């Protein structure tokens, strides 16, 4: 299937869980080598979208193609060329970072010297070289997240889905991941689809941002355009204006009466 320079294309993509409509009629296009940010409150449908696009979840309606492959029919092809960083870390606590990455490499049919060299390089870049043989059970949540980031890009995917990549990282590690995304997007034409709550991170990294609220894509555009359209000073203010949730200080203290 030809991708026409577009890595993700959805048409009327919807997902229902029983009576709950998690995603309603999503229509987006993400260009190859671009960085797409998906913003929205908790339960907006971001993770559901990622799971459908990465072939883990069946859509209830609509069409979607990822790197030219149909999400309904060619899931294994999609998985082979994409990487997924899930929202919560599902690491093997009794494996070391090296052993876990070997395991992930083997799942993606990479082994031998190529895998070993990649693991060493990635752990070095992420600042884990001194702890690479320690069991993951003793890692902090930030270190676990770094290992997961490494596992996501280990097989050099063409498209990477990142679900809250920096939520557990300290500022330095967050900046490192940010730079890594920008470098990979620019130098290797890797496409990134990033779900996040961090508006400043999205503003810095993403070329196009979609804001999802209650399963509906309410806004789509560059960070600058979004900020300009709602007359906000930055993306956080724009996000609050679009999604709601602007702070009223008086009501915040009403519980004390």
């Amino acid at each position: 299937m030809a991708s026409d320079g577009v890595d993700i294309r959805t048409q009327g993509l919807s997902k229902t869980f029983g009576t709950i409509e998690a995603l309603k009629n999503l229509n987006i296009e993400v260009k190859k080598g671009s960085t797409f940010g998906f913003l929205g409150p908790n339960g907006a449908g971001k993770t559901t979208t990622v799971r459908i696009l990465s072939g883990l979840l069946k859509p209830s309606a609509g069409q979607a193609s990822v790197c030219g492959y149909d999400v309904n029919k060619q899931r294994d092809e999609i998985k082979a060329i994409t990487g997924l960083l899930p929202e919560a870390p599902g690491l093997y606590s009794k494996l070391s970072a090296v052993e876990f990455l070997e395991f992930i490499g083997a799942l993606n049919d990479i082994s031998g010297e190529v895998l070993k060299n990649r693991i060493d390089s990635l752990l070095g870049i992420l600042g884990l070289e001194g702890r690479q043989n320690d069991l993951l059970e003793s890692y902090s949540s930030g270190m676990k997240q770094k290992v997961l980031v490494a596992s996501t890009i280990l097989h050099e995917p063409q498209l990477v889905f990142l679900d809250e990549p920096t939520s557990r990282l300290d500022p330095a590690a967050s900046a490192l991941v940010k730079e890594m995304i920008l470098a990979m997007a620019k130098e290797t034409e890797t496409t990134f689809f990033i779900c996040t709550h961090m508006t400043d991170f999205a503003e810095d990294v993403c070329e196009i941002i979609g804001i999802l609220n209650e399963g509906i894509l309410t806004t789509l555009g560059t960070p600058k355009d979004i900020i300009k359209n709602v007359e906000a000073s930055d993306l956080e203010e724009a996000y609050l204006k679009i999604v709601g949730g602007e702070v009223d200080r008086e009501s915040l203290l009403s519980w004390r009466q």
Partner: protein
Amino acid sequence: MARKWLVIAKTEFLVATSRFHSMRKAVSLLIVAFAMVWALFIAPAIMSAFVDLFAAEIQMILAVAFPGLMRSVMLLLWVLVLIYPISFALQEIRIGQWEIMLSNNVSTRDMLFGTFLGKLPSYGLLVLFMAPVLISPFAIVYQVSLVGQALMYGVLYITALSTLWFSNVISTAIQAKLGESSRGNDIAKALSMVVAAIVIIPMYGIMYFAGPLAEIMGLDVFLVLPSTWGADLITWTAIYFNGIGLSQSTILAFESILLFGPALDFLLVAAFSIVMLGIGFAASDRLFTIQAGARTEVVTTVGRDNLFLRGIRSILSGSFGVLVVSLLKDFGRKAQNLSRLGYGIFLSILLPLIMNFSGLGATVDDPLFVPMMTTLMTGMMLSMLGGIAFGGIGFLDSKDQLWILKGSPNGASKFVRARVASHILFALPIALISTTSVTVILGLDVVVFLAMLVYVYAALCGAILIATGITANNPAYEDIKSSAFMINTGLTIVIIMLSSMFTMIWGILIMISERNIPLGLLVNIVPLLLVGSIVVFIGSKRLSMPDN
């Protein structure tokens, strides 16, 4: 000021009864009402009928070995009340909840007393159900008056309560020591299995060796156990309030066996209760000390792969070998998995031993009977318990782990294949330990040993296929309280049992009529392996499917 211990106790009760939700009060009342009816009417009636039915035998046993038997029975209750709360508490380390309580200025004494009170309803019910079964045969045979019976139950309850308090103190201390970490949780779960195994010994002892156990328990050395003081006090109560007119010489005979008089036993029971209470309150500040955090806990660094793992890598080259080795490491490094397998080995050895040493093995006059039944029992016991250890909790840690596996092409089916291969490798030493132990203890010959080893190993492999298939079909992760885990465990046991028994009669007939143990065992094992292959195939397919 609100009594904080009461708030904690109420919360513990809400947690314990959470599965009833809105019907909590009605269900609780119903259970208590049934327990009362059971304790006052049903259990005494059943035990009375039982005593009447085997009047001569039971009366003889009770007359001869009353003190020893009462000590055995009380030991079982004591171990149950002591061990089970520890075992359950260790399955869920709750340091996070302690932090909330401590940050809300709750005293550690309130925390200790509140958690103890919170456990009372469930373990109180356990005692309420068990007490009449344990006490009424003695009360019936000795025709103990109502006042005497009330005192017997009173002593039993006081012993049980002080033991529960003691158990609460121990479990709190262990939880604090282990801390809320991945490693601590793993060790705690492993310990919970080890302590649970302790309950088995007095239970099987009473089931199969009532006579010898009563004799052993009559020894003076058991006077150090608090359960013995309670048991002896109950015995004294039954003697003093008996309605069968025990002669002075009989009472004197009891005195020589019991060694301690009723006053000393009473003092010891009371002192144990008070001292335990004192120790608990005095040590509460130390008990609720939150220890290791993420930066301070023990860090385990892994070394180079050992010879065995390197061998597997070279035999199973490529990605599959890496997967198998990774999963062997992941499974083998978890203390809880090893503990569960140890428990399986322990039970698989214990049952044939009991069968032989309790005299059941001698009931059939055929030299083939003991090796045949031992092999079948060891195989079935190990396959059921091994199946749960390999399939249930040893399969996947979390849903997030599953997302990672499913995120790679054919990841789920590759994982299932590698998991099965790693478990089958792991099962070999398990089968070897179990079979060798049984062979050495029972003095079986080499041919029987080899036949048993092959059978037990094949049974374990069949169980691994079944359990892995069932868990892949309905992953339960590490949550042993989830309905998925309960269903999987039940299904695993039922399918393994049915598959093992499907051709068992035929297999036994071949062994007896043809005098051919290997052929009989082969006939026995085929359905288990066949069903296992089908179940794991279905499980693997289902796990690979995208979620709906």
